């Protein structure tokens, strides 16, 4: 048996293993892998996600068991220190020696730290490993405990630097990005797009300093600032250096493999170094005189090396490596492909710029107008995948190439046709190198009928996920071509969409989940179809979550939001945000009695956190006695209707927004819907209630109310669209009644009104016709259903505290009165909070 030693268990080293064991004749080899980091390979591309979830496991590419199960010896926390080419052995930091038949160097790269005076100071970090992130997080906490306005700078305004900028912002520090070049992302963007990006980032709160050469890091042992010369300084408490990468070629150097002048191990198109027994792949390999700082070329190199070692000699590296990139900076779309910008004698450019919306798009076309050479998109990269494919596959351009970026798109037409027009050889998933042909075959020939199963079979979409939209299109279109309708079936237990299930429950009068499963489902259900069904039963019968408690989602089951440590929060309804001093005192008294952390929410009410399960009925009993009722903060139902003070107090008010908000909130409270619903009522167009960020909003104007629908804050903010202008209160309410009912009947599970309206064919015009002109002939039904909701509302917490059977669900143990001894609180500014997660 021959031995292959892989040095480096990073993304590419791991991919080598994965691809290797997939081959039949790999059984004749033993794989031994060394990794210097304290854990097995993880997804560095999504490293920044660690800030949000602090979950190293979630980034893992494969568990330690995976290596054992596949007979790979993975030795982590062990650095290889020497290669002895003559004996074909390596030695490690702990002085052990191992021999190899083939050696694969996948040592990646290290962040480049420019030799600036003072970079060694405390508070200066690089951004490459989970440990780097942990150190940064700990340091940021330290800064924040000292002062409330800590600042962090990132040195380098490239792809990674901007990602780091967003990360330090998410850590709660004031973010600054310092770039030496006169523009951001100098390699990928032209000056104008870079400017648009800069404006957008600045509006997000990231401060950008371009054209700055850092001379010195200031501070006495600990960083306090950066010096740009000529009295130009920036005070910062922390610095993240992101000034490029350097290949980790030190091993190759000491054993005299051929190197590039500026570093990197030279390889040929077989990924072989100057020693044919030694291969180099990933960010350490210098191919075509280039280091490729992206994961897709690294994966391709792994594939080539695997095949070369297994003697499939015809698999070699292509000449041209695609360096197109899409930035995954949450909040701004940025992408560039092909040749992003060029002088006019090389090609013609079409540029669309809209500074007010922060959008810039550029495509470069050959002089004869026939081929796409490259392009840039900032602010809206929705068409990136298809343009990128047109470029990669040399596809003919439409006569009016400008349609590719401005085009008749908005009106429903698309200049591109569909993803199906791509040639079969088009690589759709570049991480896993899956072609359009392979994806379509997986549907047409292998019988896969869902994106999930195609993904599983082909691995497409399992890497960075950027190809998901196109993958979905291809699966959908292929299914259509087979004459199959594409099912949005909710899970393996129901071959129906939510809308279909809704109709089934309604028309057949199905009463509970078990009956539904027995009549139209299979098996015993799961955590996906149970809550969806619970929502449908609630919408149709207006039943509370108490009735079928075990099919409710976590929060609905106990009528409270579960918190980080398994305790719950309590949110009474405060309609329209109006609350009397007496009610405030009652809340204060009860919160104090049960030692609950108290906070004013973003929805104009008060949230009391840290209640143990058995305390919930006790607390609610007291709240109900004080006249409160549940605020359904846990349900997919109406949350709050936010109001401004309106004409009752405000000198500009056109009408009484508070009164209207209270009326509306009480009207819709308790109604279960596909996702939560929020409303807003503003007394004039100054819009202090942010009604246009809500699912429905009313704004008082001269002569009546303007009604807006389909707005959203949250993850993907969208302004609501105008449904109707200047109508009286009654009319406004009727239209919103119908809008809500229509949404409840037709939306997908967990689809907010904004996403629903965006997908609704015909958009707002269609909706206007349904709710105002009765184009579907259903408004009398919608009106009756809404009235039935309003008439049958009950406070489910009142029901719970009064019913002994329901009340008995609120104990931690069935066989003991004791409390959960695993819950620990720590103190926080005179209140308490859950102990940190480890």
């Amino acid at each position, binding site marked *: 048996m021959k031995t292959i030693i892989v040095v480096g268990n990073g993304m590419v080293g791991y991919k080598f293993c994965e691809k290797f064991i997939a081959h039949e004749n790999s059984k004749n080899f033993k794989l031994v892998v060394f990794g210097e980091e304290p854990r097995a390979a993880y997804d560095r591309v999504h490293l920044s996600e660690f800030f949000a979830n602090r979950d190293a496991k979630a980034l893992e590419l494969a568990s330690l068991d995976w290596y054992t199960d596949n007979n790979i010896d993975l030795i982590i926390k062990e650095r290889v220190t020497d290669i002895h080419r003559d004996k074909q052995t390596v030695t490690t930091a702990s002085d052990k020696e191992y021999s190899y038949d083939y050696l694969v160097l996948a040592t990646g790269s290290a962040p480049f730290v420019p030799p600036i005076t003072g970079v060694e100071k405390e508070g200066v970090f690089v951004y490459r490993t989970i440990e780097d992130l942990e150190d940064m997080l700990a340091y940021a906490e330290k800064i924040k405990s000292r002062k409330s306005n800590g600042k962090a700078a990132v040195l380098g305004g490239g792809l990674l630097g901007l990602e780091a900028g967003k990360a330090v912002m998410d850590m709660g520090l004031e973010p600054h990005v310092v770039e030496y070049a006169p523009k951001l992302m100098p390699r990928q963007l032209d000056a104008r797009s870079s400017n648009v990006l800069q404006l957008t980032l600045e509006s997000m709160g990231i401060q950008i300093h371009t054209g700055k050469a850092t001379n010195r890091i200031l501070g006495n042992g600990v960083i306090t600032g950066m010096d740009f010369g000529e009295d130009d300084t920036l005070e910062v408490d922390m610095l993240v250096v992101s000034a490029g990468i350097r290949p980790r070629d030190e091993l190759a150097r000491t054993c005299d493999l051929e190197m590039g002048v500026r570093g990197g191990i030279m390889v040929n198109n077989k990924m072989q170094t100057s020693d044919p027994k030694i291969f180099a792949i990933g960010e350490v390999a210098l191919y075509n005189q280039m280091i490729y700082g992206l994961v897709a070329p690294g994966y391709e190199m792994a594939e080539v090396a695997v095949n070369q070692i297994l003697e499939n000699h015809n698999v070699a590296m292509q000449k041209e490596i695609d360096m197109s990139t899409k930035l995954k900076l949450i909040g701004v779309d940025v992408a560039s492909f092909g040749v992003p910008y060029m002088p006019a004698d090389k090609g013609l450019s079409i540029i669309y710029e809209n500074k007010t919306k922060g959008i810039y798009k550029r495509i470069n076309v050959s002089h004869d107008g026939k081929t796409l050479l490259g392009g840039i998109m900032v602010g809206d990269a929705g068409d990136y995948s298809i343009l990128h494919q047109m470029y990669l596959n040399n596809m003919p351009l439409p006569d009016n190439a400008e349609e590719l970026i401005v085009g008749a798109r908005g009106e429903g037409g698309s200049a591109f046709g569909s993803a199906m027009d791509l040639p079969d050889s088009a690589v759709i998933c570049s991480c896993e190198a899956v072609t359009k042909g392979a994806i379509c075959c997986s549907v047409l020939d292998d019988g896969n009928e869902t994106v999930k199963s195609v993904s599983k079979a082909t691995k497409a979409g399992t890497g960075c996920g950027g190809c998901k939209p196109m993958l979905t299109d291809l699966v959908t279109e292929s299914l259509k071509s087979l004459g199959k309708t594409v099912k949005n079936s909710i899970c393996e237990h129901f071959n129906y969409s939510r809308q279909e299930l809704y109709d089934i429950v309604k028309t057949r009068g199905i009463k509970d989940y078990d009956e539904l499963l027995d009549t139209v489902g299979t098996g*015993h*259900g*799961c955590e996906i179809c149970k809550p969806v069904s619970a929502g449908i039963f609630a919408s149709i019968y207006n039943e509370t979550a108490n009735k079928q408690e*075990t099919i409710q989602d*976590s929060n609905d*089951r*106990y009528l409270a939001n579960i918190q980080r440590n*398994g305790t719950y929060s309590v949110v009474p309804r405060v309609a329209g945000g109006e609350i009397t001093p007496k009610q405030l005192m009652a809340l204060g008294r009860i919160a104090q009695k049960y030692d609950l952390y108290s906070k004013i929410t973003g929805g104009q009410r008060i949230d009391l956190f840290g209640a143990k399960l058995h305390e919930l009925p006790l607390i609610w009993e007291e709240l109900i006695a004080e006249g409160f009722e549940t605020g359904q903060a846990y349900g997919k139902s109406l949350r709050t209707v936010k109001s401004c003070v309106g004409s009752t107090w405000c000198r500009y008010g056109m009408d009484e927004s508070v009164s209207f908000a209270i009326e509306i909130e009480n009207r819709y409270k308790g109604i279960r819907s596909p996702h939560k619903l929020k409303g807003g009522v503003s007394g004039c167009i100054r819009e202090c209630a942010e009604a246009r960020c809500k699912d429905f909003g009313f704004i008082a104007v001269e002569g009546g109310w303007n009604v807006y629908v389909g707005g959203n804050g949250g993850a993907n903010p969208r302004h609501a669209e105008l449904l109707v202008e200047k109508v009286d209160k009654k009319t406004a309410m009727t239209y919103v009644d119908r809008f809500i009912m229509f949404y409840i009947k037709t939306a997908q599970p967990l689809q907010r009104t904004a996403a629903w309206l965006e997908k609704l064919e015909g958009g707002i015009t269609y909706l206007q016709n349904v709710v105002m002109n009765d184009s579907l002939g259903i408004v009398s039904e919608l009106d009756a259903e809404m009235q039935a909701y309003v008439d049958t509302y009950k406070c489910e917490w009142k029901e719970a505290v009064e019913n002994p059977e329901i009340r008995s669900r609120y104990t931690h143990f*069935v066989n003991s009165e004791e409390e959960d001894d695993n819950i620990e609180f720590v103190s926080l500014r005179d209140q308490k909070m859950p102990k940190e997660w480890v």
Partner: protein
Amino acid sequence: MISSTLEKYQTVAIEDVKVWYKAALVNKFPKNGGACVKYKEKQIAVFNFTREGNWYACQNLCPHKMEMVLSRGMIGEENLEPKIACPLHKNTFSLKTGENLNGSLGAIATYPVRIIDGYVYIGFSE
């Protein structure tokens, strides 16, 4: 402290049961749902999978964030494998083998359950 909490929970195979602990009346457990049982220093989540006609028990501790919450999760089935979804982040575990089905967390410990005369008994090896 956390890892020692986790170590308290080791799968018990039916043949290794030394103690059948009488936990509570059958009707204390919701249909197709779970509840938590205290046994010495342990918290055990017990599920009444009525649709399948089976009972299952596992540690109440979710290995993801080390919270005692699994009994409040939702049970279900995936490719015929009975499973529990944690109420906090919906990680799912097989109720038979304890294996994490949608990720690479460690397996949770499972325990045998017996129903005698309307009472739920859980099997422990000590």
